[in-house]
């Protein structure tokens, strides 16, 4: 660890107060309430879509605000996680295409 690393560390920015963190936390709690209530309504096949959409929203909030991706200036880091998710989506999509078309 040398001076260059110390400079990289200082690139990480953060908000001026803890208010955004609290706001995100409350949103996450509310979304958890919504997803649990929604799942108990017996919406049938829509349930899985609803709960996974809410899970995706919650993850994006954690990534952007708690993990500071919103303030990240380095393009490679900004694109790394979306890139990984695209890769995963390709894997899942191709596997589905295979399984569904197989009799």
């Amino acid at each position, binding site marked *: *660890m040398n001076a260059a*690393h*110390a400079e*990289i*560390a200082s690139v*990480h920015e*953060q*908000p001026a107060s*803890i208010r955004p*963190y*609290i706001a*995100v*936390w409350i949103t*996450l*709690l509310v979304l*958890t309430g919504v*997803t*649990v209530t929604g*799942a108990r309504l017996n919406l049938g096949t829509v*349930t*899985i879509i609803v*709960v*996974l959409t*809410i*899970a995706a929203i*919650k*993850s994006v909030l*954690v*990534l952007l*605000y*708690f*993990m500071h991706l919103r303030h990240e200036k380095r393009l490679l*880091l900004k694109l*790394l*996680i979306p*890139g*990984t*998710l695209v*890769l*995963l989506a390709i*894997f*899942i999509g191709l*596997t*589905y295409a295979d*399984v*569904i078309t197989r009799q």
Partner: protein
Amino acid sequence: MWLFIATEVLLFGGLFLLYSMYRLKNPVEFHKASRELSLFAGTLNTLVLITSSLSVALGIFFFKANKIKQARIFLLATIGFAFVFLIVKAFEWTAKFHHGLYPNSAFLDKQPKGEILYFGLYFMMTGLHAVHVIVGIGALSVVYFWIKGNKLTPERPVWFENAGLYWHLVDIIWIFLFPLFYLIS
């Protein structure tokens, strides 16, 4: 650290893929087996992990603002929440074992194939997640003692940030495990 997180996403991604394929083949059994899980325990643990994620974020925030005392309090709170999560999980697993719901048990082997698969995946995925929680407790504890011993200072907070990123990852994985196992009945 972000590269490591990307590899972790792919590690759990593979398991999620396995889950979705087996679910596609055994939708009814997955719904039925999901009813065996305690929605209360799952929801409680979700709230605990979300709050622990907040507390580690606040810890890093105060640390970078040179407020070491607050940073240490929030760091300890995060470790405390992590232990609460594990204790709830331990109660859940114990209850499952009492009902004969564990891989290769005499009772579970007589159930339909889909339910065997569901519980196999449940123990595999929540187990791997629990291992991550334990590793997280280790990482956060190391950070705590480094701060205490003045080895980690606000001028170079990167190891605290990395431990925090890892902890948020543990939270995000649970955000997906929770609906897939608890909310599909």
